[in-house]
């Protein structure tokens, strides 16, 4: 199978606006999930990881200054600003041109500009902005992408599906490069829904821990630029070596009781990359810190022969970024791979799942060659993507 190379990336969460700001924060164990008392967002305080609004406005203003003939900042929604800053930052370091007809834009999100449904936002933007394809148009037009974007909305695996779709379309020869970006914001819509599921933790989430009490929501945006050509300047190349999705066919909100289906996706990704479980040096898990998800994932890793492999979840740092999670967490995992560092799985103290797991308990250097990133979501969907360092 032809390799697909990772050129550049960007990451925006509560911990910063670039990938390097995130590695800086991860090395120091900074936790972005905080008790947030914002009556506009939810009637009572909730644990949230929020992108700093003042800094976002500043970054966006900087981007606007660098481009000509753009609409004023007020004509973009909060989510659109996050997407634009992230794509701008990621493109900066690559020589991939949006105007190139061989460049594809792939966008992943679960809810897009869903905050525009709120009464106080209704007057600010046209109703059309609620449609995910309109969000796609805004991003496309800003950067003048030649091609119509591909938009993926597949619950919490959206980000991995977007990366998988882009890498397949580059592999098939349909495109030479792809800019893959995923974003979601914290909204009352989503907070109230997860609260009705009694899924939100009263404290910052603790993936795979014995005392985990549910998930913490976060907002964020991640962008990864991929290409059929390697980066000539890079000392080591990271490639997408395989990716797969599966469905539990069990329940629309509760995960599989066996983990067989996620394990199937992991094994498919390994097979595509021609690797065995023994070749994997690190797992970036979905790790939402809900009782059932973490239990299911631990079983899936055991079934895949990966129980011994160091594993973490980044959700303890910046929460569950929903449709962005697959890309956001991939950026962090790829950074681990490039820098040969395993990051502590924030919130973890004592193993609280039935299958054995090697959860990373402190930051440490390690020789890393290949990484599996997983995700699972409502609708019974699972996804796995394989990154390999060459």
């Amino acid at each position: 199978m032809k390799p697909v190379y990772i050129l550049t990336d960007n990451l925006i969460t509560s911990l910063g606006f670039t990938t390097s700001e995130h590695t800086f924060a991860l090395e120091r164990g900074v936790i972005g999930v905080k008790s947030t008392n914002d009556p506009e967002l939810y009637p009572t305080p909730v644990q949230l990881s929020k992108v700093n609004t003042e800094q976002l406005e500043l970054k966006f203003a900087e981007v606007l200054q660098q481009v000509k003939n753009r609409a004023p900042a007020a004509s973009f929604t909060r989510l659109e600003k996050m997407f634009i800053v992230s794509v701008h930052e990621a493109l900066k370091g690559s020589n991939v041109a949006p105007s190139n007809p061989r460049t594809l834009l792939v966008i992943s999100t679960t809810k897009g500009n869903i905050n525009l449904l709120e009464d106080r936002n209704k007057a600010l933007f046209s109703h059309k902005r609620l449609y995910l394809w309109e969000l796609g148009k805004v991003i496309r037009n800003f950067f003048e992408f030649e091609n119509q974007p591909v938009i993926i909305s597949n619950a919490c695996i959206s980000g991995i599906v977007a990366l998988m779709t882009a890498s397949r379309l580059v592999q098939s020869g349909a495109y030479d490069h792809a800019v893959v970006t995923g974003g979601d914001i914290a909204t009352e819509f989503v907070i109230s829904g997860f609260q009705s599921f009694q899924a939100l933790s009263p404290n910052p989430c603790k993936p795979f821990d014995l005392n985990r009490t549910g998930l913490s929501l976060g907002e964020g945006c991640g962008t990864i630029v991929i290409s059929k050509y390697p980066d000539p300047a890079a000392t080591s190349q990271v490639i997408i070596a395989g990716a797969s999705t599966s469905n539990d066919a069990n329940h629309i909100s509760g995960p599989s009781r066996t983990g067989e289906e996620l394990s199937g996706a992991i094994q498919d990704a390994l097979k595509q990359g021609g690797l065995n479980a023994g070749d994997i040096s690190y797992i970036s898990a979905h790790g939402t810190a809900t009782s059932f998800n973490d239990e299911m994932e631990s079983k899936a890793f055991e079934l895949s022969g990966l129980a011994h492999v160091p594993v973490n979840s980044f959700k303890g740092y910046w929460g569950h970024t929903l449709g962005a999670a697959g890309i956001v967490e991939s950026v962090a995992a790829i950074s681990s791979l490039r820098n040969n560092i395993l990051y502590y799985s924030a919130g973890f103290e004592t193993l609280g799942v039935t299958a054995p797991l090697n959860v990373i308990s402190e930051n440490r250097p390690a020789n890393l060659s290949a990484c599996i990133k997983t995700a699972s979501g409502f609708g019974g969907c699972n996804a796995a993507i394989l990154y390999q360092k060459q």
Partner: protein
Amino acid sequence: MDELILKLKQEVIEQLNLEDITPDDINPDLPLFGEGLGLDSIDALELIVLLEKNYGIKIEDPKDGKKIFHSIRSMAEYITEHKK
């Protein structure tokens, strides 16, 4: 109590979209979950919303739900005890 039981049956049928099931089909003493009505974990969460919305009763610990939502009768008893 009988009046409350009938009212609860109707509310459960409506809230959980139990098409083709009439109040007479539900035995107030038989378990709501497991066999019979085919209810699942989302239905259990929906019953918590029902108690809060229709009776102003908030279940703080979801683990209590298992006992409260055992049957229509246990629900009715809990409501009678806790209704403000």
